[in-house]
Structures are given as C-alpha cells and as structure tokens.
C-alpha cells in the first residue's frame, strides 16, 4: 500500500488528533511521532477510553517541526463480554482549529473476537 500523506496547513497551527472507540468497548491507545527516516520515536500521547481524560490531544509542539515526520498509532480494543457476537469500532480524526483535516479520518470496524490490535501510519506534509 502506498504511503499515506496527511497535508497539514502551516497557517492553522499544530494539528489535533482524537481517538474515538465505539461499541461501548474497552480501548487504549498510544501515538508516536517519528523522524522523516522512521527513527527516534517520541510518544505523543497514550490513554484509555474509560477515564475522564479527553482522548483528544495536540500532535507535537510546533507545526514546522512536523514536516515529513511519520505519525503512527496503535490501538487495543477488548470486548467486555465473552463469546461471539461482539463488534468493535475505532475512529482516528485529525483537526486544525476545530476543522477537519482533508483525508484525516481513519475508520476501523468489524467483528471483535476478544481483542483487536489496530494500527495506522501517515506521513505529515506541512503546506
């Protein structure tokens, strides 16, 4: 699959990332920012969806520092109930100044057999 590029507006400042885990399932996530060569990972955020802390956070401290960086996320979803018949859903949304970033929405959904380990990766292009 070709590398996914996420175009970020320099004028709109640091982008925000939100992770929504649906189907009333348990979820936790971790987000890393990598240098343009895919090395030196810095943890941007980590969290769970069962606390009172919003699962929305800024990506980096400066928009210029994001140029050509790689951003990856990993999500673990676990069903509360045992047995078949469970579903999972997760949505990763990028915004700038509250506006959606074009191509900045990633949806995952399907049958949940106990645990689902998800991941995603984009290269940030500051324009």
């Amino acid at each position, binding site marked *: 699959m070709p590398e996914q590029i996420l175009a970020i507006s320099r004028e709109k400042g640091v982008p925000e990332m939100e992770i929504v885990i*649906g189907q*009333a399932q*348990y979820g936790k996530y971790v987000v890393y920012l990598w240098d343009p060569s*895919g090395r030196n990972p810095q943890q941007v955020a980590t969290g769970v969806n069962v606390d009172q802390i919003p699962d929305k956070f800024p990506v980096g401290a400066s928009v210029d520092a994001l140029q050509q960086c790689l951003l990856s996320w990993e999500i673990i979803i*676990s069903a509360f109930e*045992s047995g*078949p*018949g469970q579903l999972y859903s997760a949505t990763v949304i990028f915004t700038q100044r509250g506006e959606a970033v074009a191509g900045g929405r990633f949806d995952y959904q399907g049958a949940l057999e106990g645990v689902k*380990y998800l991941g995603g*990766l984009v290269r940030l292009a500051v324009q």
Partner: protein
Amino acid sequence: MKKTARVCLPVVLLLFWAAQPGAAQSEGKPIATAQVDLSVPESPAFTVLGLTPETVIRPASPREFATAILNGVDRNGNFHSGVALDSAPYLLLAGNQVTIRAYRESLATRLLSRTKVSIATAQGASEADKSTRLAAGVHLTFWDKGDARMDSALTKCFDEVLQFGPPISPTLTDKERELEMAKRQEVLKVKAQACREKSRKANWNRSSWVVGAAPSWISLPGNIRKLKWDGGALWSSLAYGFERVPKLEQSAQLILHARYRNNEQAPDMLAKGTFIRQNSTLAGGRLRVSPSNPDYAFSLEGVLVHTSPANRKADNSYRISLDLERKLTQDLWLAVSVGGESGRKDGNNQAFVLTSFKWGFSRQAELVAPGQ
C-alpha cells in the same frame, strides 16, 4: 411419562453424560478449565414459542448480533426445531458513536444498548403438530448489576494486562506490520479472556430486571404462506443475586418471572392433532445454583399456570421441574428439564422430560462493510 419423552430420554442421558470434560475442546483448552458460561441467551422470540425448556426466563445481557439454534421436545411431547436471530439494534446501527464513557454515564444509552430484538421460527416435526410458528420479540434490560461494561474490576484487569509492546517501526512493510499486530493480538486475547472469566465468575448471578414482549404467528399446516396471527406475550423476569449474603452471593440466584400470553393456538390435549385458542397467565420462580463443576448449571423451577381456553372452563395448575444445563463445547449447551404437572381439571397432568440443544454463534462479520 409421554412416549416421546421415553424415546428421547436414553438419547439425552447418553449425550449428557457421554460428553465428559476433556473430551471436547474449548478454544484449545479442555472444557473442564472453562468457567460458567451460559452464553447462549434465552431468546425472547423462543420464549413466546414455548421452546425454551425452562419456563422462567433468565435475564441475560444481549450481544450485538447472535444466532441460536434450538432443537427439542415441547411440553406436549412434540418435536420442534427452530432458529432465532437476536440483535441489539442500537449498538448495531449507532454503536460506532457509543463510547464506554457514554454508556456508563447515561441511563438512556445503557437502556438502548441493552435492548434486544429477535425473530424466531420453529417447525413442528410430529404428526400431532406440524405447525410452523414465527415470533418477533423485544427485550428491555432496565437494570443489570452483572453488566460487564459496568464492572470496574474488569476494567482494572484490562488496564493491567493489556499492554503495548515497543513501538512498531514505520520502516516495516505493511505486511510485516500486520503480522506484528496479529502476533500481539493473539497474546493479548489470552490475557483479556482471563480477566473476563474472572469477572463472569464473580457476576454470573447478579441482580437484574428485564421486560419482554413478543407477537407471534402460526401456520397450522406448516405452510409459511398461511401464517395467521397467534397472539402475543408480555413477560418480566426479576433476578436477585443474594448480594452481601454470605455463601449465597457467589453460588445462587433467584429469578421471579411473570408472563401473560393471549390468543394462542395450542395443541388440544383432549383431541390429538387439533388446536384450541387460549389465554394463559403464568407466575413462577427459579433457583439457580452454581455447582463446583463449572460445566453444569442446575435450577429448580416452580410455576403456577392459569389457562383460559375458548369455550371451556378456566384451569389452574402448577408445574415443578429440575433443570440441568450441560456445556458441551463453547456456545453449545444441552438443556434438560425433568418435572411434572399437577392440578389440571382435565386430568391431563403429565410428567415430562424436555430437552434442547442451545447453540449460539455470531454471523455479524457478514454485516461489516467490505474491506474491513
């Protein structure tokens, strides 16, 4: 004892006892190591068709999508086979927006998420009853102290055991990343399941309250094109889990059940092969006990039945039974109900052995958008 029951009894007992722990496997481990898992719900639509061996319906949390197959002998000695499709429509349609935080904080969200609808059909296979029955059901769980989504201990267990490994390098190919995630997923599945088993063992008998309703249709000759209105049913089950009562808190559950069924076409016990219309009201209780062996569940059930057949005198009777459920494999349970009736004015009191296989499975993957 009825002839049908006599014929079925040896087969049932053979199946019940032949499936010894360790003979079958459940997700790669012997059944004997699994926990109590009455995970095949008693479908509301099966309830109104009278195809659940237990009369007193056990409250159970719904799944997003589930299917159950049931084969067994009804209280009139006639063999039926049926299939029920159950779903939690709110989670199915709007579940992507339902976070666990919203579920825990909003009573309305919980009520909607726990609401189950089902449709079931059953076909009689004996000369006395070849009818085809169809029912739709709705099942509202107003209160459930055993709801796993509200279990803080389960959440804490997930917090502890579901850990990320080192960051997955972006220099890996897509295939390598997928393989790494699949590998981690398999490891976490085992850890999460251990948390769920612990939670289920602690919560299997918690108090809860459900209300159900189901309209039904019947075709006496068995032709689906000749389906006619067959009345409906309203029922409620209130379960008490003996919370804070030593000993019983972990080992017993008392379920009270009331049901009204109207305009039903029931087989006429006085004229075999014919049907009569009747209304019935039922009230009863069921005491469930968890034995030391988790592959069995035992219940003692007592029910009072008031029946009002058309053009006949109303009748009151009672029914007592001992119900046993035996886990054969994951999601496959054999249920046997042994008991007797008394007090019927027509003198048609019967001992009965009712059996059924309850087989629950999921087909929800077919509903997922392509590419997922």
